[in-house]
Structures are given as structure tokens and as C-alpha cells.
């Protein structure tokens, strides 16, 4: 099934990797460079899932999740956090911020697709 | 040595140098333009007329008569520069006047007889007759590529 994804990451390489992993399986991928840009992009689109990095300039991943959950439009949109840290406290922090789940970088494309399908149905 | 490989007609551009008639394979000709003053190249051999501005590129020009060991081209307004391309390089050939374009069958041309002289470079690759006039068919590559070694 085709999903519309918003990927927020300040690393161009990471954005490209996500695109490369998802577009061949038919996903539509939008990207944003940081949290602020992400909220701007969200004004115009209605993605099925949002993927976000944590360490980003201007507005980090936690701030971005807050902003998404505070708004009405994307309150229930699944958000997956991309993190290099598999530490439990990182997961808990992401969850308490309102993240749906997490993907540990570097991600395996198959697992990424599975995770996206799992949270978005 | 066979002059032309294929048995298809060859188109030649004929032109005058003094009172003699010469020709070039039209495939090597890029354009023909009127005479403009060339900027002389310092200390160049006498047949190097200099360089002209051909729409923004610097084109070297050879005085073809002088190159062939004939009398230098008399300068008048009918002088033209035949721009030829050979091995990727563009060169201008200054001639007195362009006459015509003729199509010939390969068998209408014959190898030049060996006159035994080696004073002039071997630039005439064939001879032909048109309306009873002898036309010399020039080898562009010989004219252009051997210029440097002759100059040295």
C-alpha cells in the first residue's frame, strides 16, 4: 500500500536515504530540513506518517513532535523518531513527547517500511 | 593509391589562385566569408596571414597561394576566406575568388602524375577536367597539418 510520508532530518544524506528506501516501494516522500521547516511543510500536506530526526537546528525533534501534537490537524498522525541511540530513556523521552515509535539509525530499509506500515496500517 | 574510396559523386568547391583553378572536397568546407584584415602573428612563416575573428573564435588564416608556392594572393575585395575543418581544427584559407560547386564521379578524377619534384608539399591529390580546364583537387589535411613542420 502506498503511504505519504514526511521525513524531517537536517542531514541531506539521511533525507536521501529515506527517499531511496521508500520511493521505490511506491511511497510518496516529502522532506523538511528541520522542525520549523517541518511544521511549514505540514501546513500543506496530510502525510500518513511523519519520520523525524531528534538533533536538528532551529527546532529539534522533540519540539517538532510537540508542535505537531499541539495542532489539531495532525494530532493522531503517527510519528516515528529516527535516533542513533537505542537507549531506553531515549525511547521514553520520544514517547512522552508524543512519538508513536522509533527507528534506530542506521535503519534497514525493509524494517523502515515495515515500521511505517505498522503504524499507518 | 586510389583517390576516392567510394564510387559516389564527390562535390568540389572550385576557386582561383592567380590564373590557376583549384578545388576542395566540399565536405571539409565550413563556410566562406569575405576578406577581413587579419591580425598578423609575429615571426610567422610568410604563408601565415594571421588570425581573424570568426564570431568570437580566433581563426588562423593561411594564404593558400603562398602555401602552394605560387605568387602571393593579390589583395582585392573579391578575396575570400574558405573556412575548413580538419582533425577538429578550423583554419581559414585565403583565395582569390570562389568559382563554383561541381559534382564529379570518382572516375572523372585521376591521380596527379609524379613529376619528380618535391619542392612543394604533396597537396594536390587529384586532377580533373571541367569544360576543358584542368582543376587541381587539394588535400586539405596536407595543407593544414603540414604547415607547422614546414614553418619550423
Amino acid at each position, binding site marked *: *500500500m*502506498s503511504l505519504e510520508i514526511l521525513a524531517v532530518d*537536517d*542531514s*541531506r544524506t539521511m533525507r*536521501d*536515504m529515506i527517499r*531511496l*528506501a521508500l*520511493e*521505490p*516501494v*511506491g*511511497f*510518496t*516522500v*516529502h522532506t523538511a530540513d528541520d522542525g520549523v*521547516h517541518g511544521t511549514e*511543510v505540514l501546513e*500543506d500536506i496530510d502525510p500518513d506518517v511523519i519520520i523525524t530526526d531528534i*538533533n*536538528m*537546528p532551529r527546532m529539534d525533534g522533540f519540539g517538532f513532535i510537540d508542535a505537531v501534537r499541539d495542532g489539531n490537524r495532525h494530532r493522531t498522525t*503517527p*510519528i516515528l523518531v529516527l535516533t*542513533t*541511540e*537505542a537507549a531506553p530513556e531515549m525511547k521514553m523521552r520520544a*514517547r512522552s513527547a508524543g512519538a508513536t*515509535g*522509533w527507528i*534506530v*539509525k*542506521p*535503519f*534497514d*530499509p*525493509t524494517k523502515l*517500511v515495515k515500521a511505517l*506500515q*505498522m*503504524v499507518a*496500517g | 593509391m586510389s583517390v576516392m574510396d567510394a564510387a559516389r559523386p564527390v562535390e568540389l568547391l572550385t576557386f582561383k589562385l592567380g590564373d590557376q583553378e583549384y578545388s576542395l572536397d566540399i565536405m571539409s568546407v565550413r563556410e566562406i566569408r569575405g576578406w577581413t584584415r587579419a*591580425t598578423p*602573428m*609575429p*615571426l*610567422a*612563416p610568410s604563408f*601565415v596571414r594571421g*588570425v581573424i*575573428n570568426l564570431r*568570437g573564435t*580566433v581563426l*588562423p588564416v593561411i594564404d593558400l597561394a603562398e602555401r602552394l608556392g605560387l605568387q602571393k594572393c593579390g589583395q582585392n575585395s573579391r578575396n575570400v576566406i574558405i573556412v575548413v575543418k580538419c582533425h577538429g*581544427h*578550423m*583554419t581559414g584559407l585565403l583565395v582569390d575568388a570562389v568559382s563554383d560547386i561541381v559534382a564529379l564521379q570518382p572516375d572523372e578524377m585521376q591521380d596527379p602524375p609524379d613529376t619528380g619534384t618535391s619542392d612543394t608539399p604533396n597537396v594536390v591529390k587529384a586532377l580533373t577536367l571541367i569544360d576543358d580546364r584542368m582543376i587541381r583537387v587539394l588535400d586539405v589535411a596536407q595543407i593544414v597539418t603540414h*604547415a607547422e613542420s614546414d*614553418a619550423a
Partner: protein
Amino acid sequence: MTASDPLADIRASFFVECEELLEALQDGLYALEHGTGDGETIHVVFRAVHSIKGGAGAFGLEHLVQFTHQYETALDAVRSDRLAVTPDLLKLFFRAADHLSDIIRSAREEQPFATSISAPLLSELTARVSLEANQEAAEDIDFAPIAVNLDFSEDPLSAKGAQLNHFQISFTPEPELFDTGNDVPHIFAALADLGELDVQCDTSRLPTLHQLAPEAVYLSWSLSLATVVEEAEIASIFEFVEGLCELDISLRVTSDANALGSEPVTSDAMTPSTEPVDAEPQSNPQQSHRDTRQQTVVRVDIERVERLVNLVGELVINQAMLSQSMQSAGISPHSEAMNGLEEFQRLTRDIQDSVMMIRAQPVKSLFQRMSRIVRETSASVSKDVRLITDGETTEVDKTVIERLADPLTHMIRNAVDHGIETPATRLAHGKPEQGEVRLSASHRSGRVVIDVSDDGGGIDRDRVLRTAKDKGLVPPDANLADTEIDNLLFMPGFSTASNLSDLSGRGVGMDVVRTAIHALGGRITINSEPRQGTSFSISLPLTLAVLDGMVVDVSGETLVVPLNVVSETLTLTENNIEMVSPGHWVVRNRNGFLPLLDLSAVLGYRAERADFTDRIALLLTLEDDVGVALVVDEIHDQRQVVIKGLDDSFYRAPGIAAATILGDGQIALILDPADIVAHACSLGAHPPAHHRMEA
């Protein structure tokens, strides 16, 4: 879209990004060092290293991951205020940044890089962190690189176990589960992928409608799943909701897998299909890019830019021709046509500038390389030197920047090695122990000026003069002015170092620097004050496609002399020219005697004159301090000309470097002054003299 390997493209773009991140890293460290940063700076620094690590992991660059991980850990300690920023720590961070750039370069070029080289730095970084936190010292890397496999053909579900497990799952979500964007059907759909799923919903807790609280959760489910997978995989489906629900997974029965039939079981009524997607959506490019901001950087083949530069060159020439012919047609300067032409001229100039700017790059990357040179050089000679840069955003032609790296490296090394005194000497002279090297760039009247200065001891002129005399570079009785002595540094093979350190190798001196600068159409000057320091000033053209030239007339031919070698113009009189021998003349100026070359005769336009009185001469200073005077008929003006290559496969004229097209459409030749001199010498003229050999 194309046949190119997408992963290779991303890899290439990763390394481009690495360059940017390294630059941000350097900037951030610099700001921390100079206290010019703010609270965000350390985060920027951290993120730079962190992002490199992320990309490195994706490409399986294990060594890079290891190093960035340790580096990042140390930065994180600073970020979270567990480690204080000290000058010492910053030095370590700078060295780590330099090392990081080495690792990245070797990774990019796929060169082997011995991990042992990183070991000392790694242990230093580790030591910093373990100093502040005892328990974290032994933290191992939980971040292992996984080279990305983009082959989707492998279906992880197809692995067939021999056994079919029957699980009973009870699941009661809590309200918070929905706050995180998780949803029950998706979880069930994922379970259904694993085998045959039976779902029972328990609605017993559902209240009557008027008692129903909208945000509360009243439902629970009991599921039975027949699957070949293990319990752990089922648990992993609930990973995201762990703690947000009551969950119990228990294995009931195990049976033979074949009993279920070989078809993998798919969904029941409530699960949407999660089959791998068909090709249809293959993403609509317009749509997928519709809402995202365009990349701010466009990568363009340099050949296209060159083509554009050439075309604009044509335009400039064409415009000059047009204005010349309008003038000669006698059109009034106040006419509309002339006004229009003026506007056309302005636009042409603007276009030319803009096109040149495409090739332009800020000198920043170059300057950052120099800060590394300062660090490494000062460390190796045990001096404390800091680099202060200014004008990093000044933009210069890309080619110029590339070709400036070597000369600048050499100058910076010289400044640190020879310019800055030892700490003891500095203290004795009442200077701060730490020396300063300044590197600045600016635009000045259509050229780029790059200054390299130090606050060291200045040039030891006595020693320079003595060395020059010892080496026979100047006559033993020479009495030279200060600036002349300073300029001796540019003479070939000159070296002032009394003991040759490993940095300034024998025979490599400022003459090499000056040759490189000249090759770029630039000039270099030197200025030194005893005890206060030395400064070099390099003046460069903005681009290599145009040349500042002096347009002169020789025997009716127009020629262009590169302006950077013209030191002065002079009208010849009986008083300043002398005949040395028949046909050999010299011009006298402040510096001594220069051989006089009749340009027209050297180029074979006509025979040499017998009398030069009242003629005009250009005094040229060439490489290796060769001075020569060229006689010309007339000087027209100075102007920028577009350089046109000459096809020299046919004939190469001596003394001619290139050509340009003038406003009247005629071609003017651009002189190669050094070649003119060489050619004149071959004709038997007196060899040109070094300026300073005569008093």
C-alpha cells in the same frame, strides 16, 4: 529516473554534505574558542559530528562511525554541561576535527586508513569523558553500522519454521496509546501478517452512550494467532505501545506447520492488505516534490558554466563592437539609441559579473584549511600561534581558490615557522606569549586582495642581506633600501632559516609562492616592521577568464600587456637611455639599468630603431625579479579583456600568450612578457638583469 546508481549518488552527496558539516564544525569550534558563539554553538558542533556519524553508519564506514561516536560522546558531555570547555579541550576538539576530515577524505577516495592512527586521539577523547563520569567510561558503542541493503526481494516473512505456534494475546490499550498516534487496527494488521489471526473484541466495559467519555478507552481484545514466528517477534510488534497497554502474550499449542497449508496466511476481515506495494504509485515526482522547499544548491557541470562564461565574453565583445559602430556612424550621444545602448552596456556588465560569480566561491574553505596548517605547524615548532581570519565570505573564482591553496599554505607555514618568535623571545620583548597570524580577504577595485600578516619579529634585514651576499645574489658592496632587502626573499632559492626545519624544505622559498601568484595574474608585495611583524599582500584578478591589460600600439598593431607585470611607464630621453654596445640599449631608473627591448623589432614587425628618444617604454617586473623595458609606440588605455585561446597546433608565435577581441572586432594579441624576454635573448639581446644587482 536515470540508470545511475542511486546509492552511489547519495554516497557522493554524503561526502559533499560532510564537507559542509566539517565547515560548520570548524566554525563552531572557532566560535567557542573566541567566545563569539552562543548557547546554540555547541549544539551545532555536536550535530555536525552526529550527522556525519549517521551517514557513515548508512554506508558501513565503520572507522568513521567509531571515531565520530567517541568525538560525539565528548561533545555531548560539553553539551550537557558535564564537561567544561577549556582551551586545552578545544585544542583536542580541533585536532579531532582535522583528523575527522582525514578519515572522511580517505573514505571518500576509498583509500585504506589505519585505525591505529586514530587510536591516540580516541583515547584522549575517551579520557576526557571518563574524567567526568566514571560509570560511562566503559560505555560501548550501541551504534553499529549497517551497510544499507536496498534489495527488497527478500521477504523476511518467508522464512519458514517447521513449527506452527498458537499464541493467545490479550490486549487492553490505555488512553495514552492513542495520544502517541498509535492505533489498534494497525497493530492487528501487522499481527495478521505473521499468520492466521482471530480477533475477539470485548465490549463489556462499554458504558451507555450518555456516560461515554470521548477520550476514554473501553475496549479490550483477545486474539489468537497461529504463526511460524517466535514470541519475540510478536512482542516486537507491540514495541511501540509497550507500557501503554495491558498486554499478555502466551504460547498455547505448537503444531506442525504443514497442517496450515503452505500459503502464508493473510488478513481477515478487519486487516487491510499489507502486501508489498504494486508499482503503480512509483511516486509522482511533481507531487512528491510539490510541498518541499527546493534545494538551495544546484549542482552544475562546470563545462556548462564555462560555456556560459564564453558566451558572455562574446556578448561583451559584441556590445563593444556595436557601440563603436554607432559612434562612428555619428549617432548623437543624446539620442534614444545611445541611451538604449548605455542601458545595454550596463546590463552586459551586470550579466558578466553575475556569470563570473557562478564560478565564485567564498574563500572560507581555503581559510579553514589554513587554520589547520597553523595548528599543525605551531605544534611542530612548539609555538603558540592562533590564526585570525577576516573576510571569509569574500568570493573568488573557484580555480583561483584551488590554485591559491599551495602558495598560501607555504606563506602560513613561513609565518608560523619564521615570522613568529619563540615564546621566550616574545615574552622578552613584552609581547603576549601567543603569536598571531592574520589572514584576510577583501575586494578592492575589481581585484581580490589577500593579506597574510604575523605579529612576529619582522624581517631580519641584516641577516637577509648577508645571506644574499653570501650566496652571490647581490654584489658584496651592494647598498640596498629596506624594501629592496625585503624583496630579496622572493629570489629563487633564498632561505633565511639558519637551521632548516622540516617545514620549510631546502630550495622552496617565497620565489615559488610568487611564481604561483604570477601564474594567476596576481601580484605579491611585502611589508615588514622590525619587532612588529611582516605582512604579505596578494592582489588577484577575480577570474581567470578576463585579464587586466594595458592596451598598446606597436607598428600599427594593437597588443595587450598583462597589467600585473607593468611596474611603471616612462618616456625615454637622452638622459635615461644609454647604448651599451651597438644595438644594445639600457634604461636607467631608480633601481639600476634595465635592458631595453624594441617590442616591434622583437616581434619582427620591423627592424630595430636606431634612436629611442621620446619613445614610450613599459618597465616590466617579471618572475625571478627580472626587469626589462619594452619600447612601444603608444599606450591606449588599461582595460579588462576577455581571454581567447590561440590554436597553436598550427603555429605558435613566440612571446604571445593568447588573444582577445577588441571593440572594433579586430583581434589583439596578448603578450607573454617572460616569453618575449626569452625570445629576445635568443635573438642575441643582452640578457635582462635582476633589478637589484646594480646599485
